[in-house]
């Protein structure tokens, strides 16, 4: 474990009884009190998550918008300052090198937020695709703490002493907390209303502890983060997204609106497999790698599967051969059982508050 990377909060997690495990090279908290309790806490009140392992790059310089729009799939043409957008870094074939959020910070100035496991590759790829621009990897000095849950807006308003009802979904702004610059982004990975907070790494522990002084907030680990994102129908890189599949195959074609001639665009026309959301009858969960069958024919593989605490049944994502992807019911063959699964619409959990429109305060 000596070689694992530590976030500014790793010592806090260890001293607060978290179960720790390696994730993308980092020593991360999987759970504190328990995955089910942390999941419920996030759906009903609010939780904080240590997401410092994720990577942040700054891209700026004259022509940054146009250059970025060729390097990534995001449609940045109409993206206003103070807003951010989800999209992909693709390879030449249209396969996904990573999914990421791009923040429009200012004129020709952007922040790209990437997965920890892909951070080094992403930075190399973007640096190569963006000659003449300044690309800075600020991951080490940037801490990211997610505050997620239906009560997150009231909690953060009380915490910062400012109105956040006027900050819409996928909008962000800078504020200050204890004299430190804090980026507040109304985004998240749980399906609930919430914020992703970016601050200097040196202030991470103080921010984390201060947020936890609010009794409506508890810490949640990567275990609950995974069950929450699954219920919300959100893809996880390395499971639902990889270099061998395009975002269109992953069911995210609706996001591919960019008119720019970006790397990988041509590859999107080829659809070999489709990612299907599957719901099961019972609590028994399929797992990554389980076979998906139609009758006796193997037609696909499970990418992620879990018991869904808010639905009280198991759910899964699976890659299914495109010519076999129109069925409504499949059988998932696990090492121990054959499970009946039916195709459902996303999100699996439909009561999430993420997109709640907050009425602006007078």
């Amino acid at each position, binding site marked *: 474990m000596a070689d694992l990377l530590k976030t500014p909060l790793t010592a806090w997690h260890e001293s607060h009884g978290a179960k720790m495990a390696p994730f993308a090279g980092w020593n991360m908290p999987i759970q504190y009190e328990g*995955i*089910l*309790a942390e999941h419920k806490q996030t759906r009903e009140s609010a939780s904080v998550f240590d997401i410092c392992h994720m990577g942040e790059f700054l891209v700026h310089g004259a022509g940054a918008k146009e250059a970025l729009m060729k390097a990534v799939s995001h449609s940045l043409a109409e993206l206003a300052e103070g807003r951010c957008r989800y999209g992909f870094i693709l390879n030449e074939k249209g396969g996904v090198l990573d999914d990421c959020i791009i923040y429009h910070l200012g004129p020709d100035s952007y922040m790209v937020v990437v997965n920890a496991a892909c951070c080094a590759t992403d930075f190399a790829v973007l640096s190569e695709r963006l000659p003449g621009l300044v690309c800075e990897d600020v991951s080490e000095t940037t801490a990211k703490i997610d505050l997620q849950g239906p009560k997150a807006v009231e909690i953060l308003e009380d915490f910062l002493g400012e109105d956040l009802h006027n900050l819409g979904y996928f909008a962000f702004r800078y504020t200050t907390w204890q004299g430190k610059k804090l980026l507040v982004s109304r985004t998240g990975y749980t399906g609930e209303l919430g914020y992703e907070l970016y601050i200097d790494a040196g202030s991470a522990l103080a921010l984390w502890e201060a947020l936890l002084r609010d009794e409506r907030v508890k810490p949640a680990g990567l*275990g609950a983060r995974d*069950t929450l994102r699954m219920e919300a129908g959100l893809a996880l890189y390395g499971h639902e997204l990889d270099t061998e599949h395009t975002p269109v195959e992953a069911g995210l074609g609706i996001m591919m609106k960019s008119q720019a001639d970006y790397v990988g665009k041509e590859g999107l026309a080829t659809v070999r497999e489709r990612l299907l959301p599957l719901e099961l009858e019972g*609590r028994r969960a399929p797992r990554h790698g389980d076979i998906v069958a139609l009758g006796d024919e193997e037609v696909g593989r499970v990418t992620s599967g879990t*018991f869904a605490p808010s639905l009280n049944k198991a759910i899964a994502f699976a890659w299914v051969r495109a010519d076999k992807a129109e069925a409504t019911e499949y059988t998932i063959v696990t090492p*121990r*059982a054959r499970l009946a699964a039916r195709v459902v619409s996303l999100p699996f959990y439909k009561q999430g508050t993420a997109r709640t429109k907050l009425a602006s305060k007078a």
Partner: protein
Amino acid sequence: MSNPADLKYSKSHEWVRVEGGEAVVGITTFAQEALGDITYVEAPAVDDEVEAGAECGSIESVKAASDLISPVSGRVVAVNSELESAPEIINQDPYGKGWIYRVATDALPDDLLDAAAYEAVCAQESH
């Protein structure tokens, strides 16, 4: 550790309580803590013949799945049906309400451990 002294234990983290001519089986505190929140239990069915040391079901948690190895041989006479809808009972009360099945049996295998010997096994696995 809070492993009751009147029970016998297997190295694969099941416990056995003898009650008359029957043996009650469950999993230990160590096992349920390692698994985390339990979400599904596949227990043997009534009248199944289970064999000591052989897999007879499975236990799933949010993050993992684990075989259930029977610590005793015999015919299953009852299973805890409450676990079907509330498997978290095992997390809450592994040695009580979280029992999994009962077997009609005359004798326990010799290689089951007492609480002290079992705790030594757990201590070793924790490293």
